[in-house]
C-alpha cells in the first residue's frame, strides 16, 4: 500500500477521515431519577391501563351485540325459514365493486364526483 504523505493533501484526507469515522462524543441525555422517574413510570402505566380499559369496553360492547344478534337469529330460525336464510346470507348479486377505479396513466380531469350516491343493498 503506497502512502503519499504530501503536506498540502494531508489536511484534506485527514478531515475526510475524521468526518467519516470519528463521531463527536456528546454527553448522553441525563437519565430520569427519583421523583421524575416515578412520575414517568406512573404515567406510562396509567396509559397502558387506559388502553386496556378501552379495549375491554370495546370487547364487551361487541360481545353484547353478538349475543343479542345470536338470540334474535335463533328466534327467527324457529319463526320463518325464508326470512332466516335471507337475514343470514349477504347479497350474492354483487361480486365485484363496479365503482372501483381502473388505474390510468394520467389523473382524470374530473378529480372528485361530489354528487355520487352509493347503491344501497335493498335485500
Amino acid at each position, binding site marked *: 500500500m503506497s502512502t503519499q504523505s504530501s503536506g498540502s493533501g494531508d489536511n484534506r484526507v485527514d478531515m475526510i477521515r475524521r468526518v467519516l469515522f470519528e463521531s463527536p462524543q456528546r454527553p448522553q441525555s441525563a437519565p430520569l431519577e427519583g421523583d421524575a422517574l416515578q412520575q414517568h413510570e406512573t404515567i406510562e402505566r*396509567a396509559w397502558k*391501563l387506559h388502553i386496556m380499559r378501552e379495549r375491554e369496553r370495546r370487547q364487551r360492547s361487541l360481545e353484547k351485540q353478538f349475543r343479542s344478534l345470536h338470540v334474535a337469529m335463533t328466534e327467527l330460525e324457529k319463526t320463518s325459514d325464508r326470512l332466516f336464510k335471507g337475514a343470514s346470507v349477504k347479497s350474492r348479486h354483487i361480486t365485484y365493486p363496479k365503482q372501483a377505479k381502473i388505474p390510468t396513466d394520467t389523473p382524470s380531469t374530473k378529480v372528485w364526483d361530489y354528487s355520487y350516491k352509493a347503491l344501497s343493498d335493498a335485500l
Partner: protein
Amino acid sequence: MSSQPRHTAFDEAMNLIQQDKKERLEMLTRVEKEIDRVTKGTLAAQLTALSALKTDLLVKSELNDPAVRQNFENNKVDMSKPVYRYLSQRQFNNFLRPKLLERVTQMSVVPDLVDVGVQPQVQINVQLPNQSFEPGDIVTPDLTTSLPTINITNYHTDSRLYTILLVDPDSPDVTNKTYQQYCHWMITNVELSATESQVQGGQTVLAYQPPHPQKGTKKHRYTWIAYEQPTKIDVTPMSRDGFNTKAFAQQHSLVTRGVNFVRQQWDASVSDIYKDILGIQEPIYGKPPKVEHYIQRHVYI
C-alpha cells in the same frame, strides 16, 4: 397570589389510577357477597374461581399505585397484602429463579443433590455478615463459622412446615477414593408463612457445624435445601457422612421447595475452625505419587 398547580399528565394518570381502583373495589364487594352466597351452596370450582377473582382484584387495584411501587423498590414490603406478595413472586419468577436454576444446573447441584426438573417455589435468603451473595458465588469460610440467619421468602399465607438442611456434596471419601455428601446442619418442623419468613423454632436434628473445605481439595458447594413437609415429622439424628438428600427426602416424603448454594475453598480460617470448633486434626489431601511408566534406556554417547 396562590400558586395554582399545573394540570399535568401525572395528575391525569393519578386520577385514572384512583378511578380504576374505586371500580375494582366496588367489583370486589360484589364478588365477596357472591363468595358468601356460594359457600353455603358448596360449589367447589365456582368458589375457587371467585377466590381467584377476588385476589386478582385486590392485587390490580393497588398495582398501579406509585407509593406501592416505591415501597417495593425500597424493600419495604408488607407480605400480608396480596400486592406485595404478587410483586415479590413476579420478581422471583422472572429474574431470581432463572438465574438460580442456571447456576444450579451449571455447577451440577441439580443432578447431585436435587432432582432434575424441580422448580423452586421459595427463596432461601442467607444473611452472611457484611456480604450479600448470588447463588454459586465464591465465599470465604470465615463468614459461615457461626449459624447465619436464614429468611425463606414464601408466598403462601397459610403456615406450612419446612425442613432446611445444609449439605456439602464434595466432602472427600478416602476409603472409596471419591466424594460423598456431608450434612452440616438439619432443622425440621419449622413453621413458615408469607408473614413469618425467618427460620426459627423447629427441632434441630443435626447441630450447625461450620463448612470446612479441606486443604488440597477443590471448591466445595455448600448447598441449603428447603423441603416442605406434609405433616409434622420425627427425624432421628443420623451420621453426617455418607448423607443422601434424595433418599432422605423420599423417606419422609418431602418436596423440594428451595435451593441456594455457595462455593468455598480452603484458607487459613479453616485451620482455626478445625482447631477451635471441630477439635480434630486437620486432614491435608494431595495427589498420589506418580508411577514411572517408562524405564529410561541407555544414553548413547
